């Protein structure tokens, strides 16, 4: 045991929270979780994954630290711990624990007194000591050769974690937070209407966090807006691909629709009518892909088109459920998440999106559904929808 090398952990303990509670569905959730873990990590290392009763152990062939960082972005994971394995005997555990502690102490400045404790758990009840007995057995042994460490059971800076399981014992010192939530795709597929703004990428991320696989659709009014605006949306999807491995963006041409609305509909209703067309187009795409819901970044009262009346008019054009994760968020709350998930800086680049095309001088605040429907009676809605869908461009962005 003296020459045990603890400079790089061998495996990663993965803890997942909520989904363990989901009764009969648990197997399905775990399956999705493992699939997403593989998709997130296998580009950088082959993995062996062991799964036993509420715990997953990942054994990467290489780059254990990088794999752990990637796991921190996989929805459904509560915490991860890079860990070392040992024979499940008190002596072997103490031997590895000693090397792990000595290595962990290198992270503290020289001369700093480190407060410390050992904390064991055992799910292997046949193990010959209780958890407390194991703590008391291991602590003096691991502390034998180290200076400047004092035991502090209440607020230690360093905890040597031990988990004794049937197959082996795990020793670790770090617990890294995962994003929580539910495994991506475990609840099914949704389609997010993505503009270049701050809110819609946040809405997409929130849907992913709650177990949805998110596809994206954006609307492009070339040549009123340019290639750079489309590229901005592609870059947003690329940023979100950190949280989801397969990403599909549909780009639908929207110029003809906007021109038709500009030329034939009452100008205050333009924005509401644009958005109704977007809901219609997205619904059609969704049905084609067996997608179960639409997701939008709409937030109550944030802009003129997001009054309750206008949201009603807009939502009425969708023929499947519309999830609005940000409906009751303040702008600051959305910005906070956007910064955290890395979309904020992209979203604030000054590229126009199609909603700014032909903006009326005065937009309706309390839209009426009957007025919308009357205005649309003057449009060839079916033809416009069909031609836009026929011009769809599909952009697949792999996970990164």
């Amino acid at each position, binding site marked *: 045991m003296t020459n045990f090398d603890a400079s790089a952990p061998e495996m990663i303990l993965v803890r997942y929270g909520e989904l363990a509670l989901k009764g009969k569905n648990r197997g399905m959730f775990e399956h999705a979780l493992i699939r997403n873990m593989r998709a997130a990590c296998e580009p950088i290392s082959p993995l062996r994954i062991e799964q036993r009763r509420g715990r997953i152990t990942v054994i990467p062939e290489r780059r254990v630290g990088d794999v752990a960082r990637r796991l921190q972005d996989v929805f459904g994971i509560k915490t991860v711990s890079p860990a070392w394995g040992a024979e499940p005997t008190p002596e072997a555990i103490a031997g590895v624990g000693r090397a792990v502690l000595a290595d962990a102490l290198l992270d503290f400045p020289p001369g700093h007194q480190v407060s410390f404790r050992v904390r064991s758990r055992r799910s292997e009840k046949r193990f010959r000591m209780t958890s407390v007995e194991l703590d008391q057995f291991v602590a003096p042994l691991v502390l034998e050769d180290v200076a400047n460490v004092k035991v502090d059971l209440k607020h230690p800076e360093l905890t040597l974690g031990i988990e004794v399981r049937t197959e082996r014992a795990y020793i670790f010192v770090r617990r890294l937070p995962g994003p929580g939530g539910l495994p991506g795709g475990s609840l099914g597929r949704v389609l997010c209407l993505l503009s270049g703004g701050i809110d819609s990428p946040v809405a997409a991320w929130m849907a992913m966090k709650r177990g949805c696989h998110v596809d994206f659709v954006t609307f492009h009014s*070339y*040549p*009123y*807006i*340019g*290639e750079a605006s489309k590229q901005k949306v592609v870059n947003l999807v690329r940023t979100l691909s950190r949280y989801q491995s397969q990403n599909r963006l549909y780009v639908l041409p929207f110029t003809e629709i906007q021109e038709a609305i500009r030329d034939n509909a009452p100008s205050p209703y333009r924005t509401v009518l644009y958005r109704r067309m977007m809901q219609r187009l997205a619904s059609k795409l969704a049905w084609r892909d067996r997608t179960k819901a639409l997701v939008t970044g709409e937030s109550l009262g944030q802009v003129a088109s997001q009054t309750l009346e206008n949201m009603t008019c807009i939502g009425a054009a969708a023929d499947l459920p519309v999830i609005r994760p940000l409906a009751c968020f303040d702008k600051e709350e959305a910005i906070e998440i956007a910064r955290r998930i890395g979309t904020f800086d992209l979203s604030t*680049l*000054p590229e*126009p999106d199609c909603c700014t095309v032909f903006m009326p001088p005065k937009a309706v605040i309390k839209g009426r559904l009957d007025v919308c429907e009357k205005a649309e009676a003057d449009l060839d809605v079916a033809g416009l929808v069909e031609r836009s869908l026929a011009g769809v461009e599909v952009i697949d962005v792999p996970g990164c």
Partner: protein
Amino acid sequence: MQRIYLDNAASTPLSASVREAMDPYLGGSFGNPSAAHRLGVEAAQAIDRARELVARATGSRAQEVVFTSGGTEANNLAVIGGCRARKESGRHLIVGPTEHASVRNAALALVDEGFEVDFARLDAEGALDLEHLADTLRPDTVLVAQMLVSNEFGSVYPVRQVARLTRARSPHALVHVDAVQGLGKRELSLGELGCDTLSISAHKVHGPKGTGALVARDGVELAPLMHGGPQERGLRAGTENPAGIAGFGRAAADAEDSRPRTIERFERMRARFAECLASFEGAKLLEPGAPRQDIMPGIMTAFIPGVPASVRLHHLDRAGVLASAGAACNSKRKDVNPALLAAGLDAEDSRRVLRFSLASTTTEEDLERALRVIETVHQELQAVQS
């Protein structure tokens, strides 16, 4: 649909002769120019030949040419390297009113090192305000950076006077000229311009991207930004890019050779463009500072009322004419350019300014076709407006 490229101030297509000059160094002659064996020597010779060509195109001597990764690096080396080498003499520098971001932001980065930055300004007519510059120069001024040709309007600034004013008032100052838009369009000469350093870039004259040079007068002190090996007289460490440099040499020589003919053609094309523009109500060709300051005719910047420039550009793009709004490097900036203010344009107007820029490869027939497209798009967009 034939494409007509009128964004040559942003970048130009690689010419056949440049590609040919680069080719050996992308293939068989791949040696490290510092190596002693024959492959190394071949690469080193290519760099020497290119250095000679760039020197001739800029009126300098070969040993005065420092190859860099482009205009931005050359500007950074001059501004930051020049100030750092002079910090015992003073910590004040002056930056021209419409400098490229690579000069302006390099200067502002020096504030953290205790330098004080002043900006020269334009007068009411959009010309460089030399009186104000004279008043701003101080005995402890260690650098004055003034571009030769504006990438935004083609204005040609009176660099020679700037250098003379500086010499008389600030004996320690380095005079740097960003001549990226001047190569192949104006005669470049350290002696005539009276400056110490001059930056140029290959891809503005049909050379490859990723290659440029700082021409630094013999004996001018600069602190290197890149540390490592002894390449480029120790001013720019790192293995050289023989293919890029060979291409740059060819491109600079070609640009200089064709310069008189190019300018003559630019003059005629500019006149045609102005004629076309005159038929658009309210439109005008922007020539800040003229006639007191020259205009390099290949950069034609126009204010066209109506839809924002971005919308007009996308329509032109669709119809095959590629141009830009303001300066490509600045298109994400929101503040109003002082030269636009001098031309009487406000913030709203400034969103309706387009730049069409020519190259030695742009033919008069190309321009005629482009003008027809510009007219057609203008009529289309007027219909949208009403």
